[in-house]
C-alpha cells in the first residue's frame, strides 16, 4: 500500500467534517465536526512527517492539538453562555447579524 492513502483518508475526513459543519445546526455537533477536521489535518501532517523523514510534521500536529484544546475550552464556554442567554444551542438562532 502506498502511504499516500493516508492523505486521501485525511482529505475524506476533512471533507466530511466540513460538510457536517455546514449541515448541522446543533452548535455542539458543529464543534465536533470542526474537531474532526482538525484531526484530519493532524493525520495528514503525521503522514507528511513520515514521507519527509523528519519530525517537524509531528511537531506541528502537536501544536495543532494544543491549539485545538484551547479552542475547545473557549468554544464550549461560548456555547454554554449562548445556551444560557437563548436557551438554545442552535447556531441558526444567533442570526441577528442580518438586515
Amino acid at each position: 500500500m502506498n502511504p499516500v492513502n493516508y492523505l486521501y483518508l485525511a482529505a475524506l475526513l476533512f471533507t466530511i467534517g466540513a460538510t457536517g459543519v455546514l449541515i448541522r445546526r446543533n452548535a455542539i455537533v458543529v464543534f465536533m465536526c470542526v474537531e474532526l477536521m482538525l484531526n484530519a489535518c493532524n493525520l495528514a501532517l503525521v503522514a507528511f512527517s513520515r514521507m519527509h523523514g523528519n519530525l517537524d510534521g509531528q511537531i506541528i500536529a502537536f501544536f495543532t492539538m494544543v491549539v485545538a484544546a484551547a479552542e475547545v475550552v473557549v468554544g464550549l464556554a461560548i456555547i454554554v453562555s449562548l445556551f444560557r442567554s437563548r436557551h438554545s444551542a442552535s447556531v441558526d438562532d444567533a442570526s441577528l447579524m442580518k438586515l
Partner: protein
Amino acid sequence: MTDLAAYTTSAGEAFQFWVLGTIAVIGALCTVFMKKAVHSALCLAGTMIILAVFYLANGAYFLGIVQVVVYTGAIMMLFLFVVMLVGVTAADSLKETIKGQRWLALLCGLGFGILLCAGIGNASLNEFNGLGQANAGGNVEGLAALIFTKYVFAFELTGALLITAAVGAMVLTHRERTERAKTQRELAEERVREGKQLPPLPAPGVYARHNAVDIAGLLPDGTASELTVIKTLRERGQIRDVSDEAINDLKALEQRAEERLGREEEATK
C-alpha cells in the same frame, strides 16, 4: 511495528489501514448524521481512537498516545459534559431550515473533496523516506529536542494561549451573583403577588394509572396537564402521554358499570 523505511508499507499495515480506515469514515459520517449529540460524540471518539492507531502506525508514537489521552480522554469528555449541561434541544433535528443550504453544502463538500484528492494525486510524492532515522533516538526524545530548541518560542506561545483560553472560558461562563438570593418567604410572597400558581405544581401521575415523572397527571376531565411534568422533559419532548389510555380505561369502566347496572335493572324487573 511497521517497516518505516519502505516506499510501500507492509501488507499488515495495508490490511489495518483498509479495515480501520473504513471504520473511521463510517464513524465520521455517523458523527455528522447521528440525530443525538451524545451519539455523535461517541462516534467521534471512536474515529479519534482509530486515528490514534494510524498515528502509531506512522511512527508518531507520542502523538498517538496524546491523541488517546488528550482528545479522546479529555476533550471528548468535555464535549459530553457540555451535551449533558445543554441537554437535548430542537436543534438536534436534522431537518434543514435554510433553503438550499443542504444541497449547497453537499455540492461544496463534494467539489472540495474531489479537488483535494486531485491535488494530492497531482503532487509528486515519490519521496517516501520513513521515520527510521528520525526516530532512531526515540520518538519522544526527538520531539522534545525539536520542541525545546527549534520550536521553543512557539511552544511558549502555546502555553500562553492555553492560559488565556482557560481564563477566557472562566470569564465567559462564570456569572457573578450580584444580588442576595431570595428566601423561601420572599418567593412565596412573589407568587401570591403574581397570582398565577399559588399552590405547588401538581405532581405527575396524579389521577393517572401510572405514577412516573415522565407521565403527565390527568385533569378531572381526563386530559393531561403538562404542568405536572418537569420542564427539561417537556423541552425534550420526552413526556409519555397516557391520557388516551386513561380515557379508554374510564370508558371501559363506565361500560362495565352500565352493564352491571343493566343487569341490576333486569333483575329488578
